């Protein structure tokens, strides 16, 4: 027997140890891919909610260079507000997830006046400041419990003034031995003293928060690096693609301008220049078209007329003279989800690639199949196949094995398929050929 369990569970074991419950609620809240701010809000909520650690308020600082910068402050502003919120939150059926939602809506509506106050606050982490709270905790990478904030000179007066409470706990946010921020918690409303078990749980939250910040920063850096790499490839590609026709046009124009150039040569040069300008136009068109930012909205439509129009188009028919073109279409194809124009373009792309890969006497086969809620359009060639090294790069922009290729057709195909919830599959054997399968979501005709 095989049993399936979902990650998210709404029924907590209330007798479970607090540590386990805390980890459970945090993990469940982090299940969704929310933003860094959102994930940190989850940690602050865990620190302040009754089903978590149960502190009254939690203040978050993020490290910005050598400075701790105030970011968020969660908790009631007064004991009246606390009483009201806690009454609401103790209503049966309100769980941790609902509390996070409540806090999220507060933050998104910018109604959290505490956060507004902490955002104006920043503490340097230089040598002098590293001796006073809150920078002390971050610099020493240790948690500090402050008992008498308003009279202790080691507490920065700006913090004491803001927090207006004697006892609070500073939790540095660490990951890979680096300080990424700090959380300060207190029991300003209830005045309950902070105990050792609270400190241990708060430390656990600090470690989780540190790792969330670390992975988010890493992820952002990775995305930036990918963007830069693509930009670099784009620059190199544009340089090469544009320079060659420009050099040709410039060189032959120089010849035209020389007085000793004969009429025949002038006419020839003008033809060359015209061809190169057309080539430039083609490059500019393809770049604008395939690298366009937005995709058209997908709709359900009958693919048969589009497939038919592409197959019957004069240039496909011309290529079909050189290679055998077999078309085997499913009867009564369903309606598929895609933008019809983009569908025609990507089908033509894949078909052109199949012809380009073919050797004389080769065969290209177009086939459609229905399969439950899917529709598969496959294009098979009997060409030389794709090497493993090339296959890994097939969908990378500007990768091409063709002499005059742009390397934009297949990345565009993949983008279209992604945008309509479908996918592309490639199977290839060296020396035998390749099959591209475009798999679309589909529904029976006329169904709504």
């Amino acid at each position, binding site marked *: 027997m095989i049993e399936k369990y979902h990650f998210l569970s709404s029924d907590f074991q209330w007798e479970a140890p607090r540590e386990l419950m805390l980890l459970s609620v945090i993990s469940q809240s982090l299940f969704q891919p929310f933003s860094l701010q959102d994930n940190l809000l989850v940690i602050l909520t865990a620190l302040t909610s009754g089903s978590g650690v149960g502190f009254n308020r939690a203040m978050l600082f993020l490290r910005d260079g050598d400075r701790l910068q105030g970011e968020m402050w969660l908790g009631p502003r007064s004991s009246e507000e606390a009483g009201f919120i806690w009454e609401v939150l103790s209503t049966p059926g309100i769980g941790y997830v609902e509390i996070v939602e409540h806090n999220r809506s507060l933050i998104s509506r910018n109604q959290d006046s505490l956060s507004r106050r902490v955002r104006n606050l920043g503490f340097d982490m230089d040598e002098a400041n590293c001796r006073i709270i809150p920078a002390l905790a971050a610099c020493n990478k240790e948690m500090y419990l402050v008992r008498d904030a308003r009279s202790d000179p080691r507490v920065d007066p700006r913090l004491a003034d803001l927090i207006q409470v004697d006892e609070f706990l500073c939790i540095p946010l660490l990951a890979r031995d680096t300080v990424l921020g700090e959380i300060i918690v207190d029991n300003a409303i209830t005045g309950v003293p902070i105990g050792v078990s609270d400190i241990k749980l708060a430390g656990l939250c600090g470690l989780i928060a540190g790792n969330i910040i670390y992975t988010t920063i890493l992820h952002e850096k990775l995305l930036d690096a990918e963007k830069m790499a693509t930009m670099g490839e784009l620059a190199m590609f544009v340089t090469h693609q544009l320079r060659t026709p420009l050099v*040709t046009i*410039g*060189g*032959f124009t120089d*010849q035209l301008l020389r007085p000793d150039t004969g009429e025949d040569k002038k006419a020839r040069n003008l033809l060359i220049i015209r061809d190169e300008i057309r080539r430039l136009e083609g490059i500019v068109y393809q770049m604008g078209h395939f690298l366009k930012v937005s995709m058209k909205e997908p709709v359900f439509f009958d693919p048969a007329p589009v497939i038919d129009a592409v197959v019957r188009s004069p240039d496909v028919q011309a290529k079909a003279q050189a290679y055998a073109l077999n078309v085997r279409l499913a009867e009564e194809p369903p309606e598929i989800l895609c933008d019809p124009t983009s569908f025609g373009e990507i089908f033509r792309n894949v078909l052109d690639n199949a012809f380009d890969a073919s050797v004389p006497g080769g065969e290209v086969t177009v086939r459609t199949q229905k399969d439950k809620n899917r529709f598969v359009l496959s294009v098979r060639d009997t060409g030389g196949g794709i090497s493993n090294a090339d296959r890994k790069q097939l969908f990378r922009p500007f990768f091409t094995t063709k002499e005059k290729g742009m390397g934009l057709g297949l990345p565009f195909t993949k983008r279209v398929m992604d945008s309509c919830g479908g996918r592309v599959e490639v199977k290839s054997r060296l020396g035998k050929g390749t099959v591209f399968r475009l798999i679309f979501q589909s529904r029976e005709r006329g169904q709504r």
Partner: protein
Amino acid sequence: MKKILLVEDEKTLCLLYEEELSKEGYDVTAVNDADAALEALASGNFDLIITDIRMPGKNGIELITQIMGQRKDIPIIINSAYQSYKEDFMTWAADAYIVKSSSLDELKRKIKELIGD
């Protein structure tokens, strides 16, 4: 007359270089890929080689490596549309790197510098 072997896959560009360099008094043999270049080298004597980098089949760097194995004495000019490779040309044992330009003055100057008129 000094003999130049020109390796360039773009046929119209080949024609341009061929005409312009012939006008300068050089005997130019133009080929469109690395294999044809190696064949030409095996059967004829050349004073200079000008090669593109990105070509179908073997690229210009592979061609240079192969030539260096046989004929270290022939000067080589890399003529490419890629500006970004320019810093690397010494490691490829080429004598000069010229970015393709519609003005052939720099190329002509470099040829003169390496093999004279």
